[in-house]
């Protein structure tokens, strides 16, 4: 696949494995998707389906020495990140690609002041003086709408609330005005009211800075409200991807349908039985080569079947065409 002009990022047949006692286990199994310029792509799926590993493979921040990228390409602005040197990657991470992690407390250093941590990004990526970096940090805190930023720069992370901390993590990720931001469950640990503030902030900054965003979440409500395109992952593979309106109006894979049907909404009759997906995601070591959702539904007994073909069934709507799970 050649990197095309209007996509800022193209992930092509990415394979990521982990070395374990039970051998090399594939957490991400030939995942492909692309991020159009200025758009938000959501990756959704249950825990353990490979969403975060996919994201961390893009910026090559896998746990070492166990995590290994074994195949595929990640073209960012036409350059293959998987074949870039470590020093190049260090320039890109926090520079042209920002990362927002789920748990702001572990993404921040507890023993350094907020201001120093934000200023550090400027010192690393731009050749500016300490004084200028400090001023830039205050400006950045103001941009993410932290009240009284000139005072807050002197605070330590534990002095701030969860929502404020997540704003700092966003400030760190956006400091160098990246063209791509990877946000891994940025609001999962937050209350709905604070989540609404943070999502609103991210949307406004995206608009101002013309960024592209990869948003990883398990919350379909968040996907519906913020994303342009959706990638549905199951057990290390993409089972369906489509523009957001199309995916919610016309889900084609049994897993996507199951996910959409199992959430109670304010319209669901109260105490009615909700639709469920029986069972759970099989552990990595037990993944079959054939359709893995069939495996969960108990339709596969031996590892004999072929991997279902991933095909475009209507413009930009892709789905894994397993004879059982593909339900048009």
């Amino acid at each position: 696949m050649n990197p095309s002009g209007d996509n800022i990022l193209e992930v092509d047949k990415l394979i990521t494995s982990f070395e374990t006692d039970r051998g090399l286990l594939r957490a991400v199994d030939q995942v492909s998707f692309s991020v159009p310029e200025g758009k938000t792509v959501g990756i959704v799926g249950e825990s353990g389906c490979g969403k975060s590993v996919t994201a961390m493979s893009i910026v090559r921040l896998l746990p070492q020495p166990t995590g290994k990228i074994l195949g595929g390409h990640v073209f960012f602005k036409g350059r293959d990140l998987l074949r870039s040197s470590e020093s190049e990657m260090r320039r890109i991470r926090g520079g042209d690609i920002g990362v927002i992690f789920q748990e702001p407390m572990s993404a921040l250093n507890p023993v350094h002041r907020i201001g120093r941590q934000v200023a550090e990004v400027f010192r690393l990526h731009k050749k500016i003086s300490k004084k200028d970096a400090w001023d830039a940090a205050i400006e950045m805190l103001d941009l993410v709408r932290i009240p009284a930023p000139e005072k807050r720069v002197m605070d330590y992370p534990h002095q701030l609330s969860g929502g404020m901390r997540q704003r700092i993590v966003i400030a760190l990720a956006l400091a160098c005005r990246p063209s791509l931001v990877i946000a891994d469950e940025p609001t999962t640990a937050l209350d709905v009211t604070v989540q609404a503030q943070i999502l609103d902030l991210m949307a406004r900054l995206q608009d101002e800075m013309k960024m592209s965003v990869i948003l990883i979440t398990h919350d379909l409500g968040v996907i519906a409200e913020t994303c342009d395109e959706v990638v549905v992952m199951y057990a290390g593979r993409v089972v369906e991807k489509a523009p957001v309106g199309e995916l919610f109006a016309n889900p084609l894979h049994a897993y996507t349908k199951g996910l959409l049907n199992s959430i109670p909404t304010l319209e669901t009759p109260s105490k009615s039985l909700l639709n469920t997906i029986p069972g759970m995601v099989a552990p990595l070591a037990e993944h079959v080569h054939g359709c893995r959702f069939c495996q969960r539904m108990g339709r596969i007994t031996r590892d004999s079947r072929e991997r279902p073909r991933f095909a475009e069934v209507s413009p930009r709507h892709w789905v894994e065409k397993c004879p059982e799970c593909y339900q048009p």
Partner: protein
Amino acid sequence: MTPLLSISDLRVHFPVRGGVLLRQTGAVRAVDGVSLEIANSETLGLVGESGCGKSTLGKAVVRLLKPTSGTILHRGIDVTHASQRSMRPLRRDFQMIFQDPAESLDPRMSVRSIIEEPLVIHRLGNRAERIKRVNGLLDRVGLPVSAADRYSFEFSGGQRQRIGIARALALNPKLIVCDEPVSALDVSIQSQILNLLVELQRDFGLSYLFIAHDLSVVKHISDRVAVMYLGKIVELAPAETIYRDPRHAYTKALLSAIPTPDPRVRRTKILLEGDVPSPIDPPAGSAFGHRTGHPRYAETIGMDLGLAEIAPGHHVAADPCCLSEEDWQKIRELRKTAAPPFTAA
């Protein structure tokens, strides 16, 4: 009829100590004057942001915490100041399940001993009967009997929550306090657990105090919903009513913040500024009016902001900062004509 659970003007304060002598310098007013009742086979949902005191309230209800003042009645029996020892026989009827089953299940105990423990403590049945009971409970919560001889860490989050539910069911309780039982679970597993809770309620006539921050989940499972803000209930109404016709500004903001899983719907959100204020030194007047910087905040200092019944079964804090002018006038009329039917502060 005596309600199953009845609490009135409950307060749970934690001392804050400071200085060299560790003198008490203040108090965290986690629960600050809460009154409510739960009937048989009823689910009362309790929602609010983190730090609003909902978990503290849940723990106080089953007397895992000692209340500072107020009363807690379990089927008419005052347990507010009951000792741990005298609580024990009463605990059979009032059980609890927790948010994180990984932390509430002992990793060194087999699943059988975990579920059996309440039976052993209450000296119920002989060994053979207990084995039979545990097997029956496992089956009831949808786990294979073979699970009994394994350890809780061998199970997934959803299965561990089932173990926690089986343990809570062991003594045939009347009320289960569910503290964020599905928040840590994936959506497909969450719906399995919600279905199980609904079925169990139907089969055994259980009551639930269901604490959660996910309002769609609370709406789904509850008969009535209480909204808590900074240690106080600010609105209490039947589930359908509170979602269709919220009266308190905080309830409106909470509801508007829920993301809708439908990309065609574009609702305008009421964005709250800032976070829940600290319960250590709460504002003297309306806590929510203080957060939003409401022009009428000054009026509310020293005012009775307790609940008033604005419509049958629909209680809302009598707070001019948080109500529409029409509702506020209505409540003033109510208060003039009669003593408020339901006071909390």
